[in-house]
């Protein structure tokens, strides 16, 4: 077991959520001191990475002082009490702008918190502000530098893309401008930025986390998800958001307690080939997967190589109909009347979505049912499945065809279509950039994903490395 050393106070931004929570409870750290460290970090580095659209320093200071007063009085609301966080700017927060990265919503200020935000505030977490996003939480894979806010930049190399559409969330967690974040994922928008920035990003079984108060992008695929630096931190966020096991309709173990359990004997399916119609993973990512599998074997997991029942390329073909068509339906009025104010990526996606034939949309939803059924059948024979997250390293920002290839050629979309929980985590580095892989669980079994990811993380050194800005 590695000994954890707390960072010195001037490097508090490197602290994990679990360490911060323990220190807040032990009163060796105050919520105000912790928040100020993050505000200082934002002032120091955010002009280089643009992870934030809006920093609510004063409301955050008030919340931190309240948390400090409560903790001093012996009121402990749970492990997130006094912990700073931020949300993608497509989440509603009462009294804060919710621009969704768009000129069309610069004046939009919701009056009510999205339920997930309300739950975190009720748990005593301290909201720092709103994070960068592709316009309306969507896009076409490219970056056109035409939105009202500068694009977020990858803290490992600011000339590179952060992954989208939750562009600020992965960057913020990796750079330490927040301790954790919430984003949203339609066909990879949590896991892609987590992959590009070396963070942990997770989607849960659809329906577990409320999508209310989050600007819709695709009704049938949207899923919120947390970003954190470690697996344990991610588990603590989910424990708070999902409440005690008895309160949930789906079977649930304590996520935090799952992290640290041995994985010896677990049956894990491995997909190391994206299948026909997609490129093979770049060599560094292939090596990362191979080496990670060796770690799992050493930890006693039983690996079996399998193929996706429906190849990733076919899944992508289905999502390419469903996503744009639903986005065009959601934002039809904006397209009709305000197309001029949109960035190119959103407008082009909505124009394309308006052209999708109902016949093709339904063909995609029929295929989706087959994808869900066949993946469910495959997964039920195993405790989890592991595969690539992305097939490429993070591309140079705005450079084509790198950008589109990175966004489109992934192994993320099949599990949005199938409705399975999935987590992306860092599994090494190449050329100074984070590598990644993905762990997928049976429906309702996020705990086993966290168990495997936690065991892998504990056995590898990747969490000790942070970007230099």
């Amino acid at each position, binding site marked *: 077991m590695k000994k954890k050393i707390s960072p010195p106070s001037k490097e508090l931004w490197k602290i994990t959520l679990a360490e911060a929570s323990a220190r807040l409870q032990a009163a060796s750290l105050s919520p105000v001191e912790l928040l100020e460290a993050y505000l200082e970090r934002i002032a120091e580095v955010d002009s280089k990475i643009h992870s934030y659209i809006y920093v609510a320093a004063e409301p955050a200071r008030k919340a931190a002082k309240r948390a400090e007063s409560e903790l001093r009085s012996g009121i402990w609301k749970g492990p997130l009490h006094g912990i700073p966080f931020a949300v993608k700017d497509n989440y509603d927060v009462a009294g804060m702008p919710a621009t969704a990265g768009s000129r069309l919503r610069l004046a939009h200020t919701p009056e009510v918190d999205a339920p997930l935000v309300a739950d975190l505030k009720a748990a005593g977490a301290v909201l720092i502000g709103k994070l960068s996003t592709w316009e309306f939480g969507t896009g076409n894979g490219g970056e056109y530098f035409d939105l009202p806010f500068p694009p977020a930049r990858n803290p490992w190399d600011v000339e590179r893309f952060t992954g989208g559409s939750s562009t600020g969330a992965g960057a913020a967690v990796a750079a330490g401008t927040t301790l954790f974040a919430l984003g949203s994922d339609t066909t990879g928008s949590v896991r892609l930025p987590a992959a590009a920035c070396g963070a942990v990003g997770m989607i849960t079984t659809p329906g577990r986390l409320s999508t209310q108060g989050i600007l819709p992008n695709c009704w049938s695929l949207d899923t919120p998800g947390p970003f954190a630096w470690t697996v344990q931190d991610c588990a603590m966020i989910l424990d708070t958001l999902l409440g005690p096991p008895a309160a949930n309709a789906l079977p649930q173990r304590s996520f935090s307690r799952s992290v640290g359990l041995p994985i010896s004997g677990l049956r894990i399916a491995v997909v190391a080939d994206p299948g026909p119609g997609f490129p093979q993973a770049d060599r560094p990512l292939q090596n990362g997967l191979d080496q990670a599998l060796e770690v799992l074997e050493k930890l006693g997991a039983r690996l079996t190589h399998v193929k996706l029942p429906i190849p990733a390329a076919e899944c992508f073909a289905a999502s390419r109909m469903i996503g744009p068509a639903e986005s065009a339906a959601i934002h039809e009025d904006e397209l*009709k009347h305000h197309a*001029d104010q949109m960035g190119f990526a959103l407008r082009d996606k909505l*124009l394309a979505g308006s052209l999708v034939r109902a*016949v093709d949309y*339904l063909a995609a939803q*029929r*295929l*989706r*049912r087959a994808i869900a059924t066949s993946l469910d059948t495959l997964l039920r024979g195993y405790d989890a499945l592991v595969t690539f997250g992305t097939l490429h390293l993070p591309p140079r920002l705005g450079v084509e065809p790198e950008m589109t290839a990175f966004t489109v050629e992934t192994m993320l979309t099949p599990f949005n279509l199938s409705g399975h929980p999935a987590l992306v985590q860092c599994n090494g580095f190449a050329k100074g950039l984070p590598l990644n892989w993905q762990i997928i669980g049976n429906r309702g079994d996020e705990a086993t994903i966290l168990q495997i990811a936690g065991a892998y993380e504990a056995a590898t050194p990747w969490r000790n490395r942070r970007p230099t800005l």
Partner: protein
Amino acid sequence: MSKKPPAKTASGEQPNNGHSFAALHGLSELKPVYLKRMEELSVPVATFGQQVRRLSNKEDGPAPVFVVMTRT
């Protein structure tokens, strides 16, 4: 004064034009520049639509992704 019907192509279909194209897709309000872009996009979108694999069994319906619920 009677209106002259639009010319027809050899196949008997009316030729495409910006307005009818926009009306077909419910987007008559769009500026010509965006209608032109839509026309450009119509080719790849149609191609992508045909790339979605069709299931042979007609009883394989679409995924039940929308649930009819009343707001509470």
